[in-house]
Structures are given as C-alpha cells and as structure tokens.
C-alpha cells in the first residue's frame, strides 16, 4: 500500500469527498493517510477550501440582452436562407443555359467546354463559403442514438 503515490491518494480522497468513486478504495486511502503526514496536511487544506467554495454563490447577470439580440435575428435568417437560395437559383439558371447551348446542333465545342458546369458549381459554393462535403457530426450522432 505504501507504493501508492501521494498525489493519487489525495486525488482519490478528494474525489470520494465529491461523491465520485475512483479506482482506489477508501481502505487503501486510509492506510496510506495513516502513515503520510504530508498527504493528511494537503487533504486538510483542500477539503477546507472545497467546503469554503461550496458556500459561495455565482454572481448572475442582471443585463437584458433581448433588444440587442432581436435586432440581429432577421439578419441571421436572411444570411442563412435568402442568400443561399438566390445563389442556387442563379446556379440552376446558368446550368440550364449551358445545357441549351450544348444542345445546339452542328456546333463543335472544345473539350474544355465540358468543365464549365463543374466550374460553375465550385464558384457557387465558394461564394457561399460552404463545403458541400462537410458532415455535420452533431446531426450524425443524433441519428445514431
């Protein structure tokens, strides 16, 4: 039992006082404390500090934030939906135009012309600062649970 590190014992003793059961048992801790004055002193100080902290209360905010937040909510909606939907409508119109041009008979477009739709899509996502390959981990986790 004397092989136990002082820090492990003090940490475990504090955890037990907090209501958490660590790997060390209470018996192991007691045996160590009986022979280690340093640990007893340290634990005494930390437990006193904990007791004092338990009597303290958090100072809560008294400020009212709604008016400042409310002013920004319509702006939030606009940036998240209007800008995106308008951009995708423009993208759709451009792709449709591309398709119509491509259907014109007897026109020999160069090989590079086939990359135009890809460039349009890349340009749209760059403008929106969106990553089309991004996975929303929070949504994935919710789905799993």
């Amino acid at each position: 039992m004397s092989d136990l590190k002082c820090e492990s014992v003090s940490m475990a003793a504090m955890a037990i006082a907090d209501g958490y059961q660590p790997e060390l048992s209470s018996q192991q801790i007691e045996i160590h404390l009986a022979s280690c004055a340093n640990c007893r002193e340290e634990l005494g100080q930390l437990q006193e500090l904990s007791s004092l902290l338990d009597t303290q209360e958090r100072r809560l905010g008294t400020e009212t934030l709604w008016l400042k937040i409310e002013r920004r909510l319509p702006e939030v909606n606009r940036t998240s939906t209007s800008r995106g939907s308008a951009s995708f409508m423009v993208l759709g119109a451009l792709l449709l135009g591309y398709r119509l041009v491509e259907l014109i008979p007897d026109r020999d477009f160069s090989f590079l012309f086939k990359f135009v739709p890809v460039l349009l899509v890349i340009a749209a996502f760059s403008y929106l600062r969106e990553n089309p390959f991004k996975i929303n981990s929070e949504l994935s986790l919710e789905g799993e649970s």
Partner: protein
Amino acid sequence: MDDNAAIERCRAGDNEAFRHIVERYQAEAIGHATAILGNREDALDAVQEAFIDAFQALDQLDLNRRFYPWFYVVLRNRCYKLAHGRQKREMSNADDMEILAAAATIRPENSMLLEQAMLELSAEDRELITLRHLDGLSYQELAERLGVPQGTIMSRLYHGRKKLRDRLARLSFTGLKVEL
C-alpha cells in the same frame, strides 16, 4: 410558455418566441461566461453571440434534451473562441467581484482575495471549479457538459484546486480554518 413550445415556434419562423429563451437563461449564461472569461464585458459579447449561434442551430436541438446544457456547449465555444482570439486577456479588477456574489459566510476582504485568486487561474480551471462548487454539478454532469471522461474531471479538479490554494496562500488568505 415552456422551452419546447418556444423552440417549436422559433423553428416555425416566430423570432419573438426566442425572447422567452433569452430572458429565461441570460442571467445564468452571463454568470457562466464571466467565470470563463474573467471579464463581464467580454462575457456579455460572448453570450449575445452564443444566443445568435443557438438560434441558427435550433434545428439541431433534440427536444427530448434540456435546452441549457445544449446551449452551454455553444456558449463555452464562443467564450474560448473569444479568449483565444486575444493575445493578452484583460481581466476585471478584482475589486469588482464579478464571478462571486457577496456571501455572509466569508469576510468581504477574503471574498475579494478569493475572487482575485480565481481570476489568476486558467479559464479552464476556473470554469471547472465554479461549475463544481458554485453550481454543484456532479462528476458525471461535468463530464457530459465538458465532453471529457470523469477520470479527467477528477484529475483536473484536483490540480485546479491545488493551484487555487497556492494562489490563496500567496495572497495571505485567512478565510480557511487551516493554515495555508
């Protein structure tokens, strides 16, 4: 109106319903942000931004879960983003008593020293100690809220309290029954 009803109305496009959420949780959120940032002015900015972030992400909130623990994650992300964005943090003057409320269990001068010692801790240590002792969260609740194992909570809490004790000793704090 309960939280879920307000959130459903927000999702349906009624921004005014978000007022219920803001007014219900702003006091607590400001208290939590102040404990992390050590500065009430920055805390107010962080809380505002966090409410905006939460509003934008309301679709991701599972209504079977309580709002505030979910919001707390959003809030602390905002706080740490703000804290790390600054080269040197400007802490509040300890005379202001921004983290702790006045308490009858401790003399005012010791209360000031305790606040000062807490402001000298890292934001992470201060957050953990205040959640444990001022809010009374269990290790399991702390682990869920901070996204780390309970063993990590045990270790970080132990070392955080030791640092706090050392700072109090340096400040000649006399509010404990034992000598530091």
